[in-house]
């Protein structure tokens, strides 16, 4: 465990090749004159925007503000989501009451609360936090729930035949068994949260990446827009793929649950 077999290495290289090709296509489209320069900025222009944005910190500040909002929201929503998910997963009675409501509110989670949140909090960070935490909460809740429900019954039964009490089986079997689901939920929550964040910032913020690309649109600055999109995309990709990988490896894969 730890060394990468040759096939995986080949796959990685091919993946990188994919992005290289993407860039090549982009470069090709802009330099061939197929589209008006104002419609699509060249890779070079975008690159210089990124460099300038790092040099004068503007890009860094916007990115930092957005990430800050995300992390705060995920922490708040995560704690609530896991707590409620465990409660509902363990109690069928409580669950049959809460779950349909959660499913319905899930349908309106996130950006749909924007107008109401603006009514309550104005165009402030509180409004943004509410909208983002809203999206994140439900994902974490439902994944925690799923994690609890997919723990094979036989593990519980085995522990019962060892004399365990219900409480004991929850601690020893259900919670560790639900961990993959909880981690999934956190990972998805970050991804969902990031999407909700960008959407909310487009409309209701004066700082941050969403704000940056939206105001750039007013001036038809496709170079700034694309620079922002790239940063947003890289962060989104990282959140979806890499962030929780190591955490998963340390716990869940060590148990071979994902075999």
């Amino acid at each position, binding site marked *: 465990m730890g060394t990468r077999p040759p096939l995986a290495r*080949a*796959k990685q290289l*091919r*993946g*990188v*090749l*994919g*992005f290289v*090709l*993407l860039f090549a296509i982009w470069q090709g489209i802009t330099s061939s004159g197929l589209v008006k320069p*104002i*419609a699509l900025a060249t890779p070079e222009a975008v690159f210089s925007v990124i460099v300038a944005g790092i040099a004068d910190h503007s890009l860094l500040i916007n990115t930092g503000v957005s990430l800050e909002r995300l992390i705060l929201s995920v922490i708040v929503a995560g704690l609530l989501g896991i707590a409620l998910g465990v409660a509902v997963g363990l109690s069928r009675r409580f669950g*049959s*009451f*809460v779950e*349909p*409501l959660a*499913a*319905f*509110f899930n*349908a*309106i989670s*996130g*950006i*749909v*609360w*924007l*107008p*109401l949140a*603006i*009514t*309550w909090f104005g165009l402030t960070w509180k409004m943004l936090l509410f909208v983002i935490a809203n999206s994140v909460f439900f994902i974490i809740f439902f994944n925690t729930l*799923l994690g609890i*429900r*997919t723990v*094979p019954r036989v593990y519980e039964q085995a522990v019962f035949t060892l004399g365990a009490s219900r409480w004991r089986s929850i601690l020893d079997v259900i919670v560790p068994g639900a961990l993959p689901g909880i981690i999934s939920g956190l990972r998805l929550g970050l*991804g969902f949260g990031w*999407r*909700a964040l*960008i*959407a909310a910032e*487009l*409309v209701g913020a004066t700082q941050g990446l*969403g704000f940056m*690309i*939206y105001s*750039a*649109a007013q001036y038809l600055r*496709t170079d700034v*827009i*694309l620079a*922002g*999109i790239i940063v*947003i*995309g890289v962060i*989104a*990709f990282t*959140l*979806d*793929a890499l962030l929780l990988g190591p955490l998963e490896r340390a716990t869940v894969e060590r148990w071979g649950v994902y075999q």
Partner: protein
Amino acid sequence: MIGFARAVAPFAAFVTLWAIVVAVFHVPQDVMPSPNAVAVAFGDAIRKGVLTVYTGETIRRILLAASSGALIGVAAGFFVALNDVVADIALPVIRFFQSLSGIAWLPLFIVWFGFSDKTIVVAVWYTLFFPVLFNTVVGVKTVPRVYRNAILTLGGDWRRMVFDVLLPGAIPYIVGGIRIGAAFGWRVLIAAEIVIGAGGLGYFIFKAEAFHLTARIVAGMLTIGTLWYLTDFFVLRPLEEATIERWGLVHR
């Protein structure tokens, strides 16, 4: 009958609680309207035709984007999946675009298409296309080699391979992709309607905020939620259950 009552009970309880809280704490109508006020706003918006028109626009957009996005996504997915090397090259890029929400592309689409209906539909199409594409590729690749070999030793041609083996085998993933795509697509749709302002339910609730018609906002939110819930409940979830749970991946 009892089943129906039991299903409705949590909602009934919630609405009751809502009404009580608003009354007991004397919550101002423009902060949180009572259920009654919302119902009134509902009726008002329907009578004026506003709600129905906007709802129609929203539905049209999601149907258009969903049907074309899903079909093209599945077809493209099959093509990509057929060659292992091509799939390896394409998957990370596809995943990148799937992670990058359609909402982030709105400013660019605004530059291209302006604040129009087209901008909204393209953004939603994009949001639906990539998850379906990604999941189709993964799904096809996951079909065990033995099944493919089996069909070959039975003398099957590529048509048989696709329709008898790959498509059924990949269906759980495809359906999963459609479900994810639809969930994201729906949210992007509302968000785009809020940003672009070319009609639709998103615009409906956003405009209501500008006029401090909180009851109308809530009415709009409930409409959005109900539409999504119904779609998920009557279309998406049964579809997923028919395929995924049959494969024994979820124990209830």
